[in-house]
């Protein structure tokens, strides 16, 4: 943006402000003119498929990459003009957990503390604190390279909060760890979010709704939607989808099903039939009856959540219609 000023913008409680950010890698435009703000104490989910530009945006906020265009402020510091001060306010867990595998957890956290400018006494105290928060007491003297994925993630998280930053940037914090640990990690993030501003990225939809208050959805470098969770699910979940597998000729099955009164849409995607109803309908019984009448066997019936891809299609379409 040409008129990106040197002056600090009027934030009114904004901790992260991204203004007209673009980043291109050679010819490829990874992030295309996006702007958003995140207020103090918010937990915001950054949602998008792989390659949408989430990591690039986060890397720009943390100062790892310099934007091609646009400005970013973190806690009143311009990331371009005052990079060191801005970085001091940020705790960052990159997608690849940045562990020195030959160090013990204790040594690693000590190094992370020093790197953030803590003197050794403060660092010692902080290590004790973050180890308690991240439940790493038993693993303090284990080499980080020997830890399982879930514990590595925790050490990464501990590293990010060692200097008690105001802002936490977490890139895919729950990827590749087992379900039980995902639950623990989520609880940890929620706890950390009590007094911090958090931006976390993910490509898993249900995850966001459990942790975040607000979601920014990004696809192909552009923001497609930005809203709080409740509003977003209202937009997205207007319909109920049922996926059936029926032992019968697919065309005839579709025809019979289409006679159901409350049905909005039916389609066949081998080997499933996909039925759409209004959100508040309970059509299962009727579907069963129709099939039974024709003598077909119902092999399976389940309610399906909309996949991220479908959401994007829907949101992008909605945006086009509005325009």
């Amino acid at each position, binding site marked *: 943006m040409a008129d990106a000023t040197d002056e600090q913008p009027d934030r009114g409680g904004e901790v992260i402000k991204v203004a007209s950010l673009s980043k291109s890698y050679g010819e490829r435009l990874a992030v295309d003119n996006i702007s958003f703000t995140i207020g103090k104490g918010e937990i915001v989910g950054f949602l998008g498929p792989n390659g949408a530009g989430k990591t690039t945006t986060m890397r720009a906020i943390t100062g790892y990459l*310099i934007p091609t265009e646009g400005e970013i402020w973190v806690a009143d510091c311009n990331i371009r003009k005052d990079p060191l001060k801005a970085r001091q306010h940020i705790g*960052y867990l990159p997608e*690849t957990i940045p562990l*020195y595998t030959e160090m013990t957890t204790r040594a690693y956290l000590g190094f992370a503390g020093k790197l953030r400018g803590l003197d050794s006494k403060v660092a010692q105290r902080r290590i004790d604190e973050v180890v308690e928060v991240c439940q790493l007491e038993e693993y303090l003297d284990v080499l980080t390279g020997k830890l399982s994925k879930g514990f590595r993630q925790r050490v990464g998280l501990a*590293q990010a909060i060692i200097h008690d930053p105001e802002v936490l940037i977490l890139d895919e914090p729950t990827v590749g760890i087992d379900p039980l640990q995902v639950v623990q990690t989520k609880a940890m993030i929620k706890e950390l979010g009590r007094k911090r501003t958090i931006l976390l990225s993910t490509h898993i939809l249900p995850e966001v709704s459990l942790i975040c208050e607000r979601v920014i959805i990004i696809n192909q470098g552009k923001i497609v939607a930005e809203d709080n969770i409740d509003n977003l699910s209202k937009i997205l979940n207007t319909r109920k989808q049922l996926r059936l597998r029926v032992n019968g000729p697919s065309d005839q099955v579709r025809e019979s099903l289409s006679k159901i009164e409350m049905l909005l849409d039916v389609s066949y995607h081998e080997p499933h039939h996909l039925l759409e109803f209004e959100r508040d309908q309970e059509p299962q019984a009727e579907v069963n009856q129709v099939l039974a009448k024709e003598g077909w066997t119902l092999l399976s019936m389940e309610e399906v959540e909309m996949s991220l891809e479908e959401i994007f299609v829907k949101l992008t379409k909605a945006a086009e219609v509005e325009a």
Partner: protein
Amino acid sequence: MAYIVSAIFIGLSGASFTTYLAQSSYSDTSIRGFLETGQLLILLFSALLTMRLISEERKLGTWELLLTAPVREYEIVLGKFFSSLLVLSGMLILTLYFPILLMIFGDPDTGPILTSYLGLLLLGSASLAIGIFASSLTPNQIVAAVVAGGILFGLWFLGMVGNLIPQPVGEILSYFSLSQHFPGFVRGVVDTRDVVYYLSVTAVFLFLSVRSIETERWR
């Protein structure tokens, strides 16, 4: 890694030190034998010591940790440089038993020995800077080692090429050669030009490393 490199360095240095003394029938009480191979060993082991310094960080992902920490690029580079210089100095200190042996069993000229060690340290610092620069270019440490080796031995043999080419081009080439500035130290002469040369090479390659890291943020 550093321990293995140091151990092998000392082993090889010791071998060349002893062989030389044996060949001269113990008539020449100097560390020349060690210095002859020592200079080349310094080049080789500097490349090995520095190859992973930045490459490995890239590979582990810890590079992102360093570059998002409130430190400047030059601080990272200087930190890496001085810590590798410390290791190299340690290796050199361990070879001090060669001159000590000579002093016990003979009467060596201490002047050239001291200047030789200064020369090795200066050559080492230039080599380490080149190694760090090579490491800043790639996440693959083997590639980094090969690039560092290429620059180091290229600059080393530039002197020989210089001697073959007529003046003044030859002389200019020789001036840029790592090898042409070393013999003075062996003879016991500390020439400011030689010292300035090694320090300049160090500074230039450290500067290039900082730039190489800075441009990475723009890519």
